[in-house]
């Protein structure tokens, strides 16, 4: 799957020595209870390959490191969303809790989908004009030692919007139409995308069930023919053929589900999480706005002696807010470009893969039909 629409792999003076498009999260292995991801990438200068092994904690460390609270402008950045942690049960079965939490990322063979999501995350960070300059990314990708040992500061990405008292602020009216629109759209789209993703997941799960049921049917017919005294040889032949037909049906569902997961499923999932990330950013800005407006009021109400201090405070906040807003504006523009490109890629590869599978299966069905027409009746 092609990554974002940006053609340039690197940003000018980005500081990242790694080519963004070369970042690959290859596989995940289970080391006792922990999933270990193998990440490869290539140096820009000489194309030399780098390979590291990281755990989820390392990714978390990266995410935390990207956010620097003392850089107010950074609050206007839409941070690429990191998928939630994948807990593997001992039999590496997907349990319902994981499915609820991770959706599509929980499906696919051997965490393949999850690895892809992590890969996308790293690439998004590497492509970000500001974030890619953060040394933490370089460290994660190239350091021999795992950086996650350092306890990262927690809390910034604790969903502010989930704290009840903060929720009121979410609907606070904006001073800027652009942002008010954006907030409204985002709110609407986030909900719709989430629902669409869930429903698509239901489709995929139904396909998987059908695949299992078809396989079961195919095997039981096969078994029966093997055991049965072929008193009626012609009938046995028909049964064998039928078994093969159901095998093909199973293959159809299996492949269709796989295609769904790896293209549109992943795409919708990313879309959904990215929209949440935008929501977070917009909320941060709104909170700042509330702060600013409060400071304004305080300044107005302040008595002469306090007025100065209040003004100072207000000015600082205003500067922060403006800086944040201007960053946010850029980010929003970038976000929309990027998400459309992402969805386009997802839809195109979804369609192409499904078309391939459908053609393959159609050929198989036709073969079966021909063979069945030739079946003897005696």
């Amino acid at each position: 799957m092609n990554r974002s629409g940006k053609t340039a792999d690197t940003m000018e003076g980005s500081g990242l020595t790694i080519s963004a498009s070369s970042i690959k999260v290859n596989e995940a292995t289970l080391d006792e209870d922990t999933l270990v991801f193998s990440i490869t990438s290539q140096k820009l200068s000489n194309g030399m390959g780098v390979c590291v092994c990281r755990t989820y904690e390392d990714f978390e460390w990266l995410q935390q490191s990207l956010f620097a609270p003392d850089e107010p402008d950074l609050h206007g950045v839409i941070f690429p969303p990191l998928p939630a942690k994948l807990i593997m049960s001992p039999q590496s079965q997907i349990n319902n809790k994981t499915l609820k939490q991770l959706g599509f990322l929980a499906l696919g063979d051997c965490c393949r989908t999850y690895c892809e999501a992590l890969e996308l995350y790293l690439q998004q960070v590497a492509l970000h004009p500001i974030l890619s300059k953060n040394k933490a990314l370089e460290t994660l990708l190239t350091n021999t030692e795992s950086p996650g040992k350092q306890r990262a500061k927690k809390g910034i990405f604790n969903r502010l919007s989930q704290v009840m008292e903060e929720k009121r602020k979410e609907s606070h009216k904006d001073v800027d139409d652009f942002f008010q629109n954006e907030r409204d759209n985002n709110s609407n789209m986030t909900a719709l995308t989430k629902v669409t993703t869930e429903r698509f997941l239901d489709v995929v799960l139904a396909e998987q069930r059908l695949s299992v049921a078809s396989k079961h049917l195919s095997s039981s017919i096969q078994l029966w023919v093997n055991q049965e005294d072929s008193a009626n040889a012609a009938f046995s032949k028909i049964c064998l053929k039928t078994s093969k037909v159901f095998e093909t049906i199973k293959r159809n569902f299996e492949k269709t589900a796989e295609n769904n997961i790896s293209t549109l499923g992943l795409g919708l999932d990313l879309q959904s999480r990215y929209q949440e990330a935008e929501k977070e950013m917009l909320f941060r800005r709104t909170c700042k706005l509330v702060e600013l407006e409060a400071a304004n009021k305080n300044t107005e109400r302040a008595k002469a002696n306090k007025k100065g201090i209040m003004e100072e405070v207000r000015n600082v906040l205003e500067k922060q807010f403006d800086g944040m807003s201007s960053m946010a504006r850029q980010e929003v523009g970038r976000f929309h470009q990027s998400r459309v490109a992402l969805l386009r890629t997802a839809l195109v590869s979804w369609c192409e893969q499904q078309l391939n599978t459908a053609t393959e299966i159609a050929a198989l069905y036709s073969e079966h039909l021909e063979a069945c027409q030739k079946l003897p009746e005696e």
Partner: protein
Amino acid sequence: MTAMKTRAAVIRPNGGRGSHDRPGASRLGPASHRREKMAAERDPPPPGDAGQARFGEAEDGEDLFVGAVGALESNPSSPEPASLPAEDISANSNGPKLVDSFLDDDPDDLFAEATEEVSLDSPEREPILSDGPSPAITPIMAPRIDSTLFDQALEEEEDNGDTFDICISVSDPEKVGDGMNAYMAYKVTTKTSLSVFSQNELSVRRRFSDFLGLHSKLASKYMHSGYIVPPAPEKSIVGMTKVKVGKEDSSSTEFVEKRRSALERYLMRTVKHPVMLKDPNVLQFLESSELPRAVSTQALSGAGILRMVNKAADAVNKMTIKMNESDAWFEEKQQQFENLDAQFRKLHASVESLVCHRKELSLNTASFAKSAAMLGNSEDHTALSRALSQLAEMEEKMEQLHMDQAYADFYLFAELLGDYVRLLTAVKGVFDQRMKTWSKWQDAQLMLQRKREAEAKLQYANKPDKLQQAKDEIKEEIVEWEGKVQQGERDFEQISKTIRKELGRFEKERVKDFKSVIIKYLESLVQTQQQLIKYWEAFLPEAKAIA
């Protein structure tokens, strides 16, 4: 007992003494009295209470003996009551639920067709005859069918060159009447070039009970000679009630469609049988514009208890009859069919599960399509919005495809397997008939032996004046029983021969049926795939157009 053949016997399987409820019930002419007397002479009165013949209101001339030819008569050495009517061989078998339905389509005769059904769940059920035809129909010819009839029919079939040319379709279900008295009438169209029909194209209207009536006539006529009579479709109280009360939802239309399809298959199977094709009942069913209602007015209690007694007696019978199978072929076949039955039931369950999953997929696809449409509507980016709307449309079309495919799964495979499970019950029934025939033959032999012993004893009797009379009587009886023994043996050989032929036919038909279904199924799969490919090909440019 060639005399038996000439006697017209009306088959009323439930004609047991419980049938007093029927007004103007058949006071069958003189025949019944004679038969009754004969039967009374032949078979000793039932030993215990098993003779539920004493049902409160025992009727006099009422016909009690069904299948009067005797193939189904009780074994004197068993505790089975003598006056038990023939078994009910059910056409009806159930879907996955066991429903003991006494309802007909037409509930003014609430217990009209009190039949029991064969459940697909239970491993073994006795086949039961559905209620007999109205006595208003002219008495059917003696039920013992010569297997020469079969041979004849087969020969004719082969002679005719383009042999089997008949196509029956059941269509246009129409609700007649209102409320709980309503019923469904179907149009039965026959297209044929066979000479046995009066026209090349015939069309009549029939209701469900007519089909059941036809089946019960055929079953009572042919089954005990070893013919495998195709079972009629099952009844369903729930389904019919929904239709009656006018519930116009998808489940009641599905039900009507399912039934229509089942009735069609039933008729086709029936006419494929060379002997049944020529049966006047079948011809009348397909040709006459008016068919006398298949009515039987058994009280629920009467018929129901009688049936239970039948079943109980049969079960006992089965246990006590230990047949010395001289022919390994039959034993093999029986085992084979047991296995087949188990397999078919299992597969049927699996296919039904598949159908369920497919319907689920269809629903989920519809849901997804709706939310994709909403997403597309809210999307600002024009090209993306368009693509999403196209996606939603495409998914809607796919939902329909999935649904259609689910119907194919169902109507082709699930129903086929269900039909065969019911057919196998009929096959089992036929084996049971053979066993009964054998049993009757053995009993006749036993009786003959007793008579001979009695004769021998008479030699040493002390009362010379009565001696001659007794000797004469005994001699008469011996002749009678010798005849019966011969008849019994002939019957047994005949039924065995017929069964062999029938099974041969059954095997051939089985292959044809399954082959035709798998081909139809594949054709539907191919078609679905082609459609799918078209949809994807149409969507691709839309997706690529997103800038």
